[in-house]
């Protein structure tokens, strides 16, 4: 799988009503307007009336503005946040089963340790490793595990949140006439 290229992929964080059929409406819209979904993660939010969809789209398949406006036309879609690459905290979870006969097992677990990944299952000739991190970290560990032989791999698709503002609203400093600020 090619690494998600930051330039081509764009993240929409979409707040929707938590009702049946909403996913179909969103997925159907993408299909019939010819927009490509790269990955999709859905779950209820802290308020169970709403769900959050994190949709990574192929920005070259359609103008982002059209995607966002068409999504807005769906009645159960409440809010859309576009998170530009680098402007959000992104995380993805991966489970990967790697061939690990006893002679290679320590090398595999060592590699997992470097990434702060966890071994979650061990078989007689394979291990399953869990890694949560940025999509880039997942790509990197995947690449490094590949020579050992990846037997199975699943990724959840990423979830993302916009970065928080670091500075408190500046109420004290005001421009005063006639003085340098």
């Amino acid at each position, binding site marked *: 799988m090619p690494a998600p290229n930051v330039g081509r992929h764009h993240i929409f964080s979409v707040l929707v009503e938590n009702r049946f059929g909403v996913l179909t409406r969103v997925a159907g819209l993408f299909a019939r307007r010819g927009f490509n979904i790269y990955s999709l993660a859905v779950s209820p939010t802290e308020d169970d009336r709403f769900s959050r969809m994190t949709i990574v789209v192929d920005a070259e398949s359609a103008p982002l503005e059209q995607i966002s406006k068409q999504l807005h036309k769906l*009645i159960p879609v409440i809010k859309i946040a576009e998170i530009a690459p680098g402007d959000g905290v992104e995380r993805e979870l991966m489970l990967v089963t790697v061939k690990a006969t006893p002679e290679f097992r320590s090398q595999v677990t060592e590699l997992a340790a470097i990434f702060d990944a966890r071994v979650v299952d061990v078989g007689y000739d394979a291990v399953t490793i869990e890694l949560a991190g940025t999509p880039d970290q997942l790509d990197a560990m995947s690449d490094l595990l590949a020579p050992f032989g990846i037997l199975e791999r699943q990724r959840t698709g990423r979830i993302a949140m916009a970065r928080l503002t670091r500075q408190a609203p500046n109420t004290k400093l005001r421009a005063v006439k006639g003085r340098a600020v």
Partner: protein
Amino acid sequence: MKLTGAQALIKSLEMEGTDVMFGLPGGAILPVYDPLIESSIRHILVRHEQGAGHMAEGYAQATGRPGVAMVTSGPAATNIVTPLANAYLDSIPLVVITGQVAYSSIGTDAFQEADTVGITMPITKHNWLVTDANDIPEIIREAFHVATTGRPGPVLVDVPKDISNQQMDWYWPDSVDLPGYKPNTKGHSKQIKEAARLINAAERPVLYVGGGVLKARGASALRELAELTGIPVVTTLMARGAFPDDHELCLGMPGMHGNYTAITAMQRSDLLIALGSRFDDRVTGKLDGFAPDAKVIHIDIDPAEQGKVRRPDVPIVGDARLVTEALIGAIKHLREKESPASIDAWMQQIRAWQEEFPLTYEQPDGGTLKPQYVIEALRDNAPEDAIVASGVGQHQMWASQYWKFNHPYTWVNSGGLGTMGFAVPAAIGAKVGRPDRMVWAIDGDGCFQMTAQELVTASAERIPVKIAILNNAYLGMVRQWQEMFYEERYSEVYLSPDLPDYVKWAEAMGCVAFRVEDPADVEMTIQKANEVDDRPVVIDFRTDYREKVYPMVPAGATNDDVIVGPVPGTEGPTQ
């Protein structure tokens, strides 16, 4: 008060002001047809569910009120898919109620089960599957709200049979709570000022008016704007009647079969003021050659239309009437300080085009009947506020070209979807909504055969619509394309002028019927038809099959390559 879901549904429709609905009962919707007996709502029993949908659309287009149709599950729901798609593309407010198999049976391939909500999702503005009878008042309220506000459109409510029978406590919600639906109607004031500035500076402006103006009931605001600025107006197929054809600033219809002046004025324009129009491919022709020098002000209530096809210089999201009114204020204000650029030279150029390239046809004495001649005779014998419905094809283009639309809501047709068979049921719906108006359907022989059975409905319900079939014995528009672009290789377009016998067929359906072959009989027969006011009337006009719709911008060509008409003395086209 305890009600069944079915009673609550009918009561909710009454609360929404429904005075008439079009439908056909069946198994899953049976419970809802029972309380209908006591209801104040007039129900018109159609002969095919597609007819119910198109009648509701004709009703909505003629009155501005939402059309309501009700049918059962499965095949009835799929039969109404075409009207839903039609209403979706032409932004017609339509509320469709469908029966569904019992909620407990959904997903079991029960008798007459179809996934109606799934099937209609892409062609409705929104749809609902009712899962609890207590939700019915709220959902119906929401359905009417969504159908009629913002950019209007069709909605569908799917009601399982056991939900219709379920008891509920009646209530009527006093407001609608849809957190994800807040259409913006007021245009941004800064953008409106910027638009006024562009309009004031333009030397070759054109008002490119679409169906949104009619939806927003903005015809008089538009007229005020045009007269204030002196800017000429083109009205698209969906906007015919939004600006009077007899007005000196009206250039008529643009697009593939628009008139030369309307097409060319847009091409040479330096400012297009798109008002409730959406740069449809039938208007723009080849997109990268469309109005190359024009800046664009795009006023549309649907934000997704902004920049979908052509990037506007000034996008304004809002209701066409409200924005037009605000724009008038902004222009007046601006003109107190700055005088507008002169558009005199532009208007001179436009007058010259109008003189050089009028719409023309020739009706030879005693020759075969020309369809345009029939339309002009229908027009000249009808009251000015008569409503005209049409199907899709050559007859539709001629009707749009040759009728004079001087009042809004007098033209009912299928623009976006191009639904053949639309005319007969749409005319019936329009007549139900406006019984005070004369309603003519101008139809083709191909179209007529698709939905003619609804004339039985019209006869039974005493709905006196008038149908003019321009019978050229061909699928005429397809024939025209085969003649012009497929080297006269005619493939599956011949229909026969007398199979069926339209007069006998119409009479069998309870209509008064006439046949006209000689141009000399046209006028007299139309007058006879106009006198019939207690039942439908059908005239079978045998027209010249060789007649083609001109002007024409061939598919894939730019609007600069418009073909004005046939070379004199030949059958071939000229540029």
